[in-house]
């Protein structure tokens, strides 16, 4: 009896091992395992036959069955691990992908180049502690001209050909962002320092460098004891930030009715480092902005005492800087909104 049970056990173990090894999937292996090691499995069935043995034989048989079970568990684990590895290997093979294909939903649109420049310029001055201000594009003559020391019937008004509104002699499309200087000083107590970006309008004939609508950014700094040296210091810092290195600036006397002394400001040509090239017209300098000390008449027109307050103002064309920076030859490209023009600014 003992021998027959023992033989059966040995046969069972051999058979189970073979079946484990021939199972092709982990599921199949689990089914096979249940047939041997489960509660209703062959080993359990053999165990239940222990009562056929004499009490003396039982411990030894028990030990042999347990040893066989352990051996089968080991064989099972080994086979399971092998199958798992095979499965992962298959997965690796079958899940190969072309990682060079373009991704889904990653396309980025472009910020308009004028906006990029505006954001950069505003950013520089915000870091220098300036507030941002804005004013309306349809302005009163007062804010755009009279308060800025452009008398009526003065040729200074010819410097800026103006669009007027029909039926409203006092209203016009602002010709510069300098109108925001007046609004800021009327509403706020100095010290003030602001930059004011925005659209401006002049009835110029349209060509490669002129558009009836363009964009400017205005700066105003008013405090006690502000001098032209402060203007120069500020503009030098600005130019270094904008061009990423110290480029050097040059102030030339010029005329804007709302500043005195007035200046046009050049930066050293960043294309030729001042040696002279086509962009700078062989001069080594590129004109980028107008500036000056706030005219006492401007302080008077907003009810501030020019004996107490001094200040400087500056203004520049955003298109001009964008054309220099991005190599745009024709200003009209900015308003056509051709996607092929915009795409590189993504």
């Amino acid at each position, binding site marked *: 009896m003992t021998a027959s049970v023992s033989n059966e056990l040995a046969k069972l173990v051999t058979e189970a091992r073979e079946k484990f090894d021939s199972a092709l999937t982990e599921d199949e292996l689990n089914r096979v395992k249940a047939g041997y090691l489960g509660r209703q499995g062959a080993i359990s069935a053999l165990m239940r036959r222990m009562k056929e043995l004499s009490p003396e034989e039982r411990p030894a048989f028990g030990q042999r069955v347990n040893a066989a079970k352990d051996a089968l568990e080991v064989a099972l684990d080994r086979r399971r691990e092998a199958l798992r590895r095979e499965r992962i290997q298959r997965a690796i093979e079958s899940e190969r992908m072309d990682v060079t294909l373009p991704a889904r939903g990653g396309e980025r649109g472009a910020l308009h180049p004028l906006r990029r420049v505006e954001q950069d310029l505003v950013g520089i001055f915000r870091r220098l502690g300036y507030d941002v201000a804005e004013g309306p594009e349809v302005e009163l003559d007062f804010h755009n001209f009279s308060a800025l020391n452009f008398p009526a019937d003065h040729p200074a008004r010819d410097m800026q050909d103006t669009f007027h509104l029909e039926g409203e002699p006092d209203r016009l499309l602002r010709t510069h962002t300098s109108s925001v200087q007046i*609004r800021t000083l009327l509403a706020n107590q100095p010290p003030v320092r602001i930059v004011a970006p925005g659209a401006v309008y002049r009835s110029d004939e349209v060509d490669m460098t002129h558009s009836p609508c363009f964009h400017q950014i205005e700066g105003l700094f008013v405090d006690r004891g502000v001098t032209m040296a402060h203007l120069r210091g500020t503009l030098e810092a600005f130019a270094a930030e904008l061009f990423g290195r110290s480029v050097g600036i040059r102030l030339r006397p010029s005329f804007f009715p709302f500043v005195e002394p007035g200046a046009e400001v050049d930066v050293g040509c960043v294309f030729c480092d001042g040696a002279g090239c086509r962009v700078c017209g062989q001069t080594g300098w590129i004109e980028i902005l107008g500036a000056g000390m706030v005219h006492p008449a401007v302080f008077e027109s907003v009810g501030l005492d020019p004996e107490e307050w001094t200040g400087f103002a500056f203004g520049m064309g955003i298109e001009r800087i964008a054309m220099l920076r991005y190599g745009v030859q024709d200003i009209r490209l900015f308003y056509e909104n051709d996607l092929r023009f915009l795409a590189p600014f993504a």
Partner: protein
Amino acid sequence: MRVSWNWLSEFVDLEGCEPLATAERLSLAGLEVEGIERFGAGIEAVLVARVDEVSPHPGADRLRLATVDAGTHGTFVIVCGAPNVRPGIHVPFAPVGTVLPNGVEIQAASIRGVPSHGMLCSADELGLDADGEGLLELWGAMTPGQSLGEVLGLPDWSFELSLTPNRADCHGVLGVAREISALLVRPLKRGHGPVASSRLGSPRESAARFEVRIEDADGCPRYAFAVVTGLTEGVSPSWVQQRLRCSGVRPVSRIVDVTSLAMLENGQPLHAFDLERLSGSTLTVRGAREGETMEGIDHAVRALDPDDLVIADEAGPVAIAGVMGGVRSEVSSGTKAVLIECAHFAPSRVRRAARRHALHTEASHRFERGVDPGAVDRALGRAVELLVRIAEESGDRPLVSGDWVDVDRRSPEAKRVSLPEGFVARHLGLEVGRERELEILERLGFESVDGAFVVPSWRFDVSRPIDLVEEVARVVGYDSIPAVMPSMQPGVAVRRRMDAPLDQLAQPIVPRERLEGFTRLRDSFCVSGWNEAIHPAFGDPERQARLMGVNEFLRIRNPLGEETSVLRRTLLDGLLRAVRHNQSHGAERVALFETGKVFDPASGVPDGPEPQHVAGVLAGLASLRWMEASRPADLHDLQGALERLGHAVDRPIRFESPHDIDVPPWLHPGQAAVVCAGGGCVGWAGGLHPELVDSLDLQGPVLAFEADLDEWLAVAPATRSAAAVPRFPGSARDCALLVDRSLPWAAVEQEIRSCWHPLMEQLRLFDVYAGDRVAEGRKSLAFRILYRNPEGTLLDADVERIHGELISHLERTLGAVQR
């Protein structure tokens, strides 16, 4: 304005000065030299020759043989093809061996069998005048064999000055000479003061034949004239012509050229009347009378305005003062006697007249800016002197009559400006030193009297101490001002002025939150693959009306064209044009957004608000990436981008059906959604009306939206607080309802929410189906509700009951059937 270097050197000592360096110095002092032209370089070897005889060329019909006399250089026979070659004229002669400015070397050559010993030249060949055809005929006093350069006053340089409106004083050679004298510390030469000529007597207020009556002394504080007779009008001597060319002025005839020369030299416009064509014996300076007209020398007849200042004789106006003369008294080829006017007219008066009549002349340009009233006599004296000299050189025997009149009604008070000590340093941040300041100002003509400076009569731009600061700064050079960074106490708080006028209180300073909102908004669009567009605010009234269904606009009085004659009320006009532009260039996907102001005429107040809008258009493919390359963009793509936008600015939006609100005309009536944020409507989104897709020639479908950013950003930002993490498991129930195809999801959702049970936690729509598998006119909406008891274990029976009640409610109220 163009200025001749040689002419300048008649007034200021330029010995040893280099023209290019001088130009640079002028530019850095505020007189920008925009261009420099060299005249007469390379004509040193060219001589004056007189043509003595012209005979036919034996071998060529169009060539002739000219025998010319070149004085001590000899007599030469030249083969010449110019049509104007004739005996008696003086012409430029380039002897054999001369290299002309265009590089051509003159060689002894035989032309069609006849030897030619040099060349007779045109102005073009000498580089003097590109339009100069035929031989350059020389006029005036000269002798054969004389150097051409000597006769013409060459070589010379011509500076092109770009003058700012404040520098009226530099509209003449004399003014520029004064400036150079101050900048380079060079003495002025003789003749910058009054003209002393023995030919001219002393001016008087009245004269034998003509007198002047000034009725409007504000408009004309000074009027002078002189009469010269015994003239014949003709071509000016060559040196005059050349000087005019160097000054950018085309020579006309002697009398006209003389008034030009006197103006170019002194900055003072003059006008010559033909004496014999003036009526009566009095010139009156007065305002034009109602109904008066005048035919100008441009032959246009103009109705005059009472504000126009005119010069009138007894028959009516003969000139609009300072702007243009009349054709009736115009100098012509038959003129034998002239009355030369030299006057001072008020700048604003001349400007108004010039603008009213749309005339911009050399004279009005100068008068508007201000002409030195103290130099009227000098300019007139120079004109008479030149006229006499040139007439004599041309063989006339001119006579300056006793009629030299000067009526001066100026206020004798000169402007005085003080310059307190320390004032310059206080504004420049640079110590110049009192002595240096005085020296600079005196060199510029400011006389120091009793601690103040007397402003010279030619400086219209100086009236305040700060103007003197600029003068000092210009001369010491802006580059000597140091660079100092102003001290920046970070975050000086903006303080409203307590004394600000009430109607000016709109705060221009933009809150940081709004600035950052704009930045995030643009970023959000770019991340969604949209591109930013920028259009000018001009609109086409017809197209704007079609989009908006309104006809009221802010209109521009002087538009560049009908298409840009109003201010936009919608950003979609520009964006749809961009769609058309890009589609016509083959764009497969157009996704553009724009932020900008719109202009509503009904805002009423002259200083009204300009709402800031955001709008966008989407057309073509949903994506250019390969996996979605065939799917057209639809409303849901647009709405997704807008929702992301709402989150980006922290003011989430939702879409609602318009119900009974009027849908704007640009929207597809069946695809119109109200964009809601907070409690209200901030904009519209949907398909573009098929009618517009058609008429604007677009490839549809096109999706679009427009929202009022001011209203959107005025909504309170989303608030956040922590939620308890559920500790008990939930249970989900799915449901597919068949409903009428036109029933919006929002209506279903509203019904579900109306019987929301405390055990319900979440509702999610996961499928919408309309097609073969459901009945015609129906659609299936599949949603999932998550149930959870936050306080304990959820009982299946409870969920079944609550869910069952919900379904029956929906079936009852919506006419729905569960699938």
